[in-house]
């Protein structure tokens, strides 16, 4: 029997159909085994083993240069691992990359939008990359634009949008093909409080409708509010993976931020890893 969640109903039926089976034990939708990425001698990600359950919001945290983005890039098939394996919904991230790609949506920190094109032109282009039929895509775009209140701006170039509007569009771009799993990388960075609230509510809503969400953020209260489970990575290694409440209890901390600083220390990160990350984001990807 499908477990139907009652939500604020701005989402379409297809989103709702992704419910979890009632009574069934939670099963991992993302697993990694000794996943490693080296840049030369430097291990940006060092033998990490993860299990992310279907239907959860997984807060993926870590200081700058800890290996978050590299892990996300490997899981989203944008970078190949140097060692180890990863599966998404049972498909291998290296050998079955296209199957993986159909099941994931990426909302990267850098906006994946062409500023000269309108919202509709952007969404049509990316939707067609997923092989979606034109008519189906047009309906889907209308629906998603309404969901993020951009329907009145759909024919304007996105370069003229405010940061909040751009991010809302960026998020629905990742949802076009209705993926089971959504990777959200810093979705509220540099947004105004209204937009932050909207995005956080949207994440909750999407999760309530069955989407598994991997959320990367530096805002600890955001991770605390949204995630069921958090994983903290530091120097390429996972230093903790557990339910938020459990971690707070374990380290006798009131907030997730305290847990985070307890585990990763208070030293500023100017290590070689940041330099590697910088070089990589400068284009060597």
């Amino acid at each position: 029997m499908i477990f139907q969640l009652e939500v604020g109903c701005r989402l379409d039926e297809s989103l709702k159909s992704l419910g979890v089976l009632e009574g069934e034990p939670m099963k991992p939708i993302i697993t990694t085994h000794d996943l490693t990425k080296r840049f030369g001698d430097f291990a940006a990600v060092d033998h990490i083993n993860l299990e992310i359950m279907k239907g959860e919001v997984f807060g993926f945290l870590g200081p700058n240069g800890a290996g978050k983005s590299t892990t996300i890039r490997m899981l989203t098939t944008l970078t190949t691992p140097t060692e180890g394996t990863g599966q998404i919904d049972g498909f291998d991230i290296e050998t079955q990359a296209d199957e993986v790609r159909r099941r994931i949506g990426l909302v990267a920190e850098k906006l994946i939008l062409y500023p000269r094109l309108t919202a509709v032109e952007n969404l049509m282009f990316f939707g067609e990359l997923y092989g979606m039929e034109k008519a189906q895509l047009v309906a889907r775009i209308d629906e998603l634009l309404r969901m993020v209140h951009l329907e009145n701006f759909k024919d304007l170039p996105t370069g003229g949008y405010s940061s909040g509007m751009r991010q809302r569009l960026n998020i629905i771009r990742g949802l076009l093909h209705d993926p089971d799993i959504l990777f959200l990388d810093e979705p509220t960075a540099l947004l105004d409080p209204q937009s932050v609230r909207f995005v956080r509510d949207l994440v909750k809503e999407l999760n309530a409708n069955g989407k598994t969400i991997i959320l990367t953020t530096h805002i600890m209260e955001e991770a605390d509010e949204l995630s069921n489970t958090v994983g903290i990575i530091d120097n390429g290694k996972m230093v903790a993976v557990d339910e938020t409440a459990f971690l707070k209890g374990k380290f006798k901390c009131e907030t997730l931020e305290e847990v985070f600083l307890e585990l990763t220390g208070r030293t500023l990160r100017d290590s070689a890893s940041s330099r590697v990350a910088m070089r990589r984001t400068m284009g060597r990807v």
Partner: protein
Amino acid sequence: MSNGPFHSIYIAFRIAHKDLLDFWKAKMLVGTFMLMPILMMAMFGSMFPSTTGTSNPYRNAPMAMVLEDHGSLAIQAGDQFKDIASSTGLFKVRDFPNYESARDGILTGSVKGVVVIPEGFTEAFNSHRQATVLITVDDTNAQMGAIIYGEASSIVGAISDNLGRIIITKMGIASDPSFVIEPISVQRENLISSTTNSFEFLAPGFMALTVVMGTLSGLASAISREKEQGTMDGIMVAPISRNAIVSGKMISQTVRGMIQAFTILGLSMVLFDVRVYGNPLLMVGVMLLGVASFAGIGIIATSIAPEQETATMMMLLLQFPMMFLSGILFPMDQLPVWLQWIGKALPLYYAADALRKIVVLNASLNQIFPDAGVLILYSLVTLGIAIPVFRKAMTR
């Protein structure tokens, strides 16, 4: 969702369509892009004047005449020179009292050359010996010097011919004076029905250069730019063939290059009187081959360059020597042999050569096959290396 070869082809065209739409929306960029070939043609076209007809840039060039001999024949020859020079509009001749003052005229720039009828000119005639005329030109501009020297000496030649005819007639030789003066004459039979001008040499070369270089640097910067702004991730994370991504980029850049190339051709036809004798489809075919032969190099550059700026610089570095070494601006035969070898190692030479043969000489596919063969070989080798390099670089 399909993922067969047809879907990949569709995706390649979809990516190209997106790129072109994005390009079209940048109005100022489009304007600059269209202005570029117009400027190139106008500038380079005027830089290389031909010596014939109205396109001679040194018409009515100031010329000095020094009569060192004051005999009747010398004066007569000087007058004839002036008559021919002014009636043909080649020179404006002024008299100078002596060679030194005329030479000063060259140094100060008031004249471009000196014609001297030296002492003993008339006497040589009277004693039935060959007389001499001296010509000095401004050698600071070698090309102009050569043109002025050529024209001045041809006027002297014409005067000499006339005198020859008179002498032969006076001598009472019964045959045609032309037979005695010039027993063999040369007649030029052109490959094409009209005379060529320098634009006919330049236009096909520029077309090849624009398509090839536009595509090459466009491809490198287009991929690098998308990597930098992050949109490439959005494409790479979709379940599409990596080759479709590269092909899409190649198609959009090729279309842009073709638009520029045909702008060059159109302008050359309208403004510079270039006539196209060849088959336009064959021209498109050769340009596509030119693009294919360079695309691999562009893809390798964008794969190894850390960012867009470097990729663009790398392409400029390649573009600059190619303009000079591939016979685009001037015939390759004017280069030293070792530079010719370098030029011939670059595919642009073959693309320009084939295109020129088609445009000017109406060459057929068979006649340009050696050029086309080299281009095909180049394409296969460079793309064969580039595609795996690109795949690897994109998932590094």
